[in-house]
């Protein structure tokens, strides 16, 4: 070992993970960028180099802008809903009470449910004539065929699905807060509401930030529930970008355009993440 020899051994250990990453991450990533510059045939093979034409036609397409807006609304509802649901359930389960195990399991359960099976169950619950929702509230609404409600329904389902993992994160965050500071606060004269806003929220702010980032990324990528519940409809009212990509590629065989949308989606998510980390550096401190 004279230090000059380049050691090869460590690189051997890296090979398996690089193989996996390469096959499932790097290769598709660069292939997507490559495809987004071409027109393709039905098999998805690049045939004609068109430069940025796929992008320019997207940016002038009304349908694409609709997808963008629908996606943003969807992400906003999902993130707000799942964070709120996760936080409320975690705060409720932070105190010991009889039956806490049952409730904790129930609140964390959405994590373990596949989005497509949850969507199937929702579809039945939201059925206009036999669905339980209409029965309970004595309504007659065609939830998923009405453009006014379809997006909200999918978003709420997704929020619930994502709330399970948030419940887990927030519970971990809450249990990290030293109980004696609440005792001190109650002697100091703080009400429960003051304690929540002055101690609890700042205490889990770092984990909330992390959850926010993950939730946003996850919400952008929702697919299964749209596919099963609404197929992007009615009209294009639930045509999220990810679903639009799927449709362009596998129904319209426009792989080039689909790839270009993927790249744009990637850029949006990356930009949002970078902005959030920039803001976090200034704001959330511990």
């Amino acid at each position, binding site marked *: 070992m004279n230090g000059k020899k380049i050691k090869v051994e460590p690189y051997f250990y890296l090979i398996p993970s690089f193989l996996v990453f390469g096959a499932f991450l790097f290769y598709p990533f660069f292939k997507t960028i490559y495809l987004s510059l071409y027109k393709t045939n039905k098999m998805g093979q690049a045939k004609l180099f068109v430069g940025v034409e796929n992008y320019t036609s997207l940016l002038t397409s009304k349908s694409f802008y609709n997808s963008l807006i629908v996606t943003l609304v969807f992400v906003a509802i999902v993130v707000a809903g799942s964070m709120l649901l996760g936080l409320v359930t975690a705060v409720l389960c932070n105190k010991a009470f009889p039956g806490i195990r049952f409730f904790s399991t129930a609140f964390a359960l959405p994590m373990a449910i596949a989005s497509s099976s949850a969507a199937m169950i929702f579809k039945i619950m939201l059925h206009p004539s036999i669905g339980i929702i209409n029965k309970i509230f004595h309504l007659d609404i065609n939830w998923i065929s009405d453009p006014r409600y379809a997006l909200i329904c999918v978003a709420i389902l997704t929020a619930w699905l994502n709330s399970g993992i948030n419940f887990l994160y927030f519970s971990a965050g809450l249990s990290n807060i030293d109980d004696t*500071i609440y005792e*001190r606060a109650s*002697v*100091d004269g703080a009400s429960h509401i003051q304690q929540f806003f002055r101690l609890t929220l700042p*205490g889990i*702010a770092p984990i909330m930030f992390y959850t926010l980032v993950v939730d946003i990324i996850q919400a952008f990528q929702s697919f299964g529930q749209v596919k099963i519940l609404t197929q992007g409809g009615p009209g294009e009212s639930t045509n999220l970008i990810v679903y639009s990509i799927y449709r362009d590629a596998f129904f319209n065989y426009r792989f080039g355009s689909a790839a270009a949308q993927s790249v744009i989606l990637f850029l949006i998510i990356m930009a949002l993440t970078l902005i959030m980390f920039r803001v976090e550096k200034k704001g959330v401190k511990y």
Partner: protein
Amino acid sequence: MAEVVLKNVYKTYGENVNVVKDFNLEVKEKEFIVFVGPSGCGKSTTLRMIAGLEEISDGELYLQDEFANFLEPKERNLAFVFQSYALYPTMSVYENIAFSLRVRKVNKDEVDKRVREVAEMLGLTAVLPNRPKDLSGGQKQRVAIGNAIIRNPKLLLMDEPLSNLDAKLRTQMRVELAKIHEKLQNTIIYVTHDQIEAMTLGTRIVVMKDGIIQQVDSPKKLYQNPINRFVASFIGSPSMNFMDGRIQINGDHMYFDVLTKSRFDEKSKFLLPNKVKRALEDRFIRGNEAILGIRPEKFSYKQKSENDQYIDVWVHARELLGSDIYAYFEFQGKQMIASVPADTEVEVDSHVRLYIDLTDACVFDKETEENYMYIDSREEKRA
């Protein structure tokens, strides 16, 4: 007016695990009360019941003559300093100190003025913008105290506030606490397992064991007049020395015959002074068995009076502590300590004749361990 009154207070966990038993105490205004006892004896539990952080299982609590069992902590108008400091990690030192005023919506200028006053008093001005995690142990301690005294509460409760500090800082903070009490003139109830802290800070000390009050008295009285063997050994450092033996009466004289391990041992029979004799004379002592208690400073290398008793012992270790030397020796199979002035020639591994002044010695019952010499000052007053 009594600041705090506890009447027959119990704390019970589960079916019948009594952590605090029949606790009776009346705390007057401006007193510095110290609860002292070995860890696990229920000091914190009692303090937390006074603060309202723990439910009172049985008995009554009065704060400023008002029945307080069911008051919320914030309605009790007191402050609490926690052992772990319990600083709010997300807030600056400034906000930590200001917190109790903030939640009461005191106006900003007033808050600022008071925070700066308190910070000045505790030497925290420079660290006001810092977070608790950037502070040293001593500074955290001061922040906790600052938060507690900023409202100038009439009653201040402290649960082992100095136990996380190193020895030097502890001594320093002890002096400062005494000063703060002097300055603010509020009532303090202070919990510690350290009898030195108790002796130096308290105007009255409550000695506890297994959830039961043993004795409530001033530091001096506790030292001179312990009610039983536990108090005698707990109060005072180094601890009191104990010898098992028998009381013997021979004509006009009363002797304490130390239980010997081997028959040909050192001299082991002491003539008891008149004071002790009088206290024991009309007591029934089962089998005449008793325990003799001698404070380490009652041993001496020189004979001071002709009434002094003596023992010949083998000194096997010594410790020099500034003005005193502790000489460690074994007597009748028991480790004992003599505390003698530092100018004494104490040689290790040598035979020594130690003189004993028995005038203030204690004699304890073998079974109940109560002190026959104890004088109940309440009875004294009544008589």
